[in-house]
């Protein structure tokens, strides 16, 4: 078939310059404005956050440069985004909710493997933890991970196989039970079996789970990032409450520039500027306003009362590296599959 298409091209050779001129003519008109673009591939529920973050950055850029900066946002589950980038999505920067998803891109050779050392705080300018969104008055008295595994409690969270949000849910439940029983693995597994069996819907991504809980009225609790839970509670006012359990896990939100893309797009400096901007007090304030927890101490002090006091466990302290977490728990035939087996 390749031959056939080459043949067609050579036959059309006489027309080619004309076609090329037409195509270029079409392209030249918008290019006259010569916008600089930056593409940010991000996770599903970060739409509103980056819409707010991009505005001041663009304003600053436009002041200092002749041309206009356009930041293109794409949003999907962060594992889906990682796959898109490996398959050719030309994103300059990634802002994910899973370090393992950046590692996947790094394994494919598109991001430097030491990406976590390139920016402060393991390249994670902000973080969150897991929270429960419950219906007003918390009728089932759900205050801890342990309550969620009680009989008759119905849970909504996305599938840990397909969603970072779901994986943190799984790891949060595991880590809290493990802390309670001093690493008695058999006990933790029995707990996880009850916990997973209480799920009524397993959507493939975070927003799907939100829809099932809020629009379809499924379940007693939606388990999601604290940031998502609190913005939902704010949006729906009096209908829901947020519960942050006393023992919980840190969900780091890692960022990186995609080496292969910035080389191709000649946008390395811009990409680095953009990611470093996320650490500035200005950006950290915006991030905190979207209910994410921030690194900047000044900003964190200003908003101290806004986040409940929680004992936050580090994923890597409890479980080890993401590579081993994925192969032990989430790979086919792993712990998750075993625990869901009936």
């Amino acid at each position, binding site marked *: 078939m390749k031959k*056939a298409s080459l043949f067609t091209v050579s036959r059309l050779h006489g027309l080619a310059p004309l076609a090329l001129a037409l195509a270029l003519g079409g392209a030249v008109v918008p290019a006259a404005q010569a916008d600089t673009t930056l593409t940010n591939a991000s996770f599903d529920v970060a739409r509103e956050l980056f819409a707010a973050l991009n505005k001041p950055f663009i304003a600053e850029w436009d002041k200092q440069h002749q041309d206009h900066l356009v930041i293109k946002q794409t949003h999907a589950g962060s594992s889906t985004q990682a*796959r898109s980038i490996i398959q050719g999505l030309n994103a300059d920067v990634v802002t994910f909710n899973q370090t393992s998803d950046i590692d996947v891109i790094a394994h494919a050779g598109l991001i430097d493997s030491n990406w976590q050392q390139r920016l402060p705080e393991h390249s994670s300018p902000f973080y969150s933890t897991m929270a429960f969104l419950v219906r007003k008055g918390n009728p089932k008295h759900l205050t801890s991970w342990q309550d969620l595994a009680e009989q008759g409690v119905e849970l909504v969270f996305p*599938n840990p*196989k*397909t969603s970072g949000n779901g994986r943190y849910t799984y790891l949060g439940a595991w880590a809290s039970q493990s802390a309670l029983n001093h690493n008695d693995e058999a006990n933790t597994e029995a707990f996880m079996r009850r916990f997973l069996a209480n799920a*009524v*819907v397993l959507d493939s991504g975070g927003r799907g789970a939100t829809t099932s809980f809020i629009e*379809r009225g499924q379940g007693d609790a939606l388990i999601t990032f604290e940031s998502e839970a609190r913005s939902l509670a704010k949006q729906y006012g009096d209908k829901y409450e947020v519960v942050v359990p006393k023992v919980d896990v840190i969900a780091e939100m890692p960022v990186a520039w995609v080496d292969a893309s910035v080389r191709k797009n000649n946008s390395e400096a811009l990409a680095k500027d953009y990611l470093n901007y996320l650490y500035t007090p200005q950006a950290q304030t915006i991030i905190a306003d979207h209910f994410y927890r921030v690194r900047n101490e000044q900003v964190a002090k200003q908003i101290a009362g806004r986040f409940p006091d929680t004992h936050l466990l580090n994923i890597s302290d409890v479980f080890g590296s993401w590579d081993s977490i994925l192969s032990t728990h989430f790979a*086919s035939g792993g712990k998750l599959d075993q625990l869901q087996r009936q």
Partner: protein
Amino acid sequence: MSKPRRILPGFHLSLGIALVYVSIILLLPLGSLVGQLADLSWARYWSIITDPRNLASYRITVLSAALASLFNMLFGLLCAWVLVRYTFPGKRILDALMDLPFALPTAVAGITISTLYASQGAIGQWLGFKVAYSWLGIVVAMAFTSVPFVVRTVQPVLEELPASVDEAAITLGASNAYAFRRVILPFIWPALLTGTGLAFARSLGEYGAVIFVAGNMPYKTEVTSLMVVTRLQEFDYPAAAAIASVVLIASLLLLLVINIYQARFFRRIHGNQHV
């Protein structure tokens, strides 16, 4: 058979274009699917496709698709009958509506169905049992996306059967039921079966509509196409291809059986002229 004279020239050109088109649209993707499978040993292939969770998904998918197809067989036939045999106000609108499931993005269908059938939805609140987020939801979603196959295959055949035929049967003393069973049904049976078979094959692979209404609980409401997508999310392309190949082979076998049955049916009725 003598070579029939063709009115339009260009047999070689049109055949060539058709083959290239089929290759690009159909064979190339299927080829890359097989290419992914080449990475697997037979033992590994077998262990993937017989994984208990996948086995459960086959059972759920096939049973739901069968039930949905059965419903569509009955109600699709009814719709086609009404559209062909009666004139009534709004007939053209109903006719156009029949194609809606083809035109509507399946995800929209899935979201709409889950809204309607959720326990507090417009329909769901009146039902004493769970439809959305249970396997019945899968059946409803599959029935929705595949009903046009039955209607659109039966309709033209019914149009060829003039009302005078059943009038003649009745005049000759047949009861309504007898006339339907012995006169009308044999005539439309191959088309009805083809339509139902296509609907079934379509349902086996349905993803978009099902995923929003199924609940996707392991061993209970996970369809096979979700198992494929899950493996893709794990970046395990060969395993995804292995599961997909099961659906593909099942659908191909089904279509083959329908074709053979149809050919035999025509031979029985018309002799060899149609084969």
